């Protein structure tokens, strides 16, 4: 399933990286400890986090995740958004809490797998 479909299904706001929405979302990861994300997120994951610091963008680039979702109504800092726009990192946002988003994303990706 590509990011554009994920955005539509979960009702996410697209904050940066509009041009990257055709990328395939192959999995998900949910964590607010960036060291943990660096160690465990896989390329193509949709990373759900409450963190808004510019290092989120650095870690997203480093791990090559498909997108970052700022959950629970959090909005990344201006410096984060500027950096993400510059680096073509997809930043999405939602007012839903991480638990809710992760559950819905997991179901969506599993359904996508079955449809193949």
């Amino acid at each position, binding site marked *: 399933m590509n990011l554009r479909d994920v955005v539509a299904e979960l009702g996410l706001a697209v904050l940066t990286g509009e041009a990257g929405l055709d990328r395939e979302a192959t999995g998900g990861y949910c964590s607010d400890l960036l060291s943990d994300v660096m160690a465990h997120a896989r390329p193509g994951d949709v990373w759900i986090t409450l963190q808004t610091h510019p*290092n989120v963008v650095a870690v997203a680039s480093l791990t090559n995740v498909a997108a970052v979702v700022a959950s629970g109504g959090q909005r990344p800092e201006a410096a984060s958004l500027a950096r993400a726009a510059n680096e073509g990192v997809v930043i999405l946002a939602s007012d839903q809490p991480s638990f809710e988003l992760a559950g819905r994303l997991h179901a969506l990706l599993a359904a996508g797998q079955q449809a193949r």
Partner: protein
Amino acid sequence: MVMATELVSLTVDLHIHSALSPCADNEMTPRAIAARARQMGTDMIAVCDHNASGNAAACHAAGQATGLAVIPGMEVQTREEVHLLCLFPSLAALAAWQAVVDRALPPLDNQPQHFGRQLLFDDHDRPLGEERRLLLTSTALTVEDVFAGVTRLAGLCVPAHIDRPSYSLLGTLGLIPPGLAVPAVEISRRADPAAVRERFPDTRGLPFLTASDAHWLSQIAPARTRLVARAPTFDELRQALAGADNRRVVIDD
């Protein structure tokens, strides 16, 4: 007579909690901390409570009474859940910083039954009351806000226990944010500096400090970190971290 310009080796423990921190033992009173640190042969300490400094003046005075240098300090929790040691040249600078932190604390009350009591003392360990606000929580300040604010007040901002998985700059934010002028980092009290440097290449070139992070009196042990400088003062510490005129900070095995 010792020349004033001579470098001396001084033991320092720059991260000790008083009973104002809810997680610290109620026996962590100003006089008791100073006496224990002196007993362990420590020359200079900093008392750094979570987002608070209500015992700072009492600890400073208690130190003076026992011949121990006490640097004004605080351990701030940023909005990202990073702990930063904030050290200041004077109690006035710390008070100015406290005003910034006060505005950035959420309007919540402490729950002593869950978190512990937040006790205030005078410099003779007489109880002065309790801090009511919840201290064990994140302020609204970012890491960058804290560095900028502390630097403006001529203080030093040292990321705490960076080798720990949580509440640490590297655990929480993964890497040292570019553009942050970090003067030194604190590593856990028993950590092997060489191993930490290998694990976190980001720390290359940064001075390391160890501290007890004591929450109980018994955790105040002989300090592993030595300040090689002219005197046990904030300014000498600042110069040692900058490597001025052969001053330095050394961690013993």
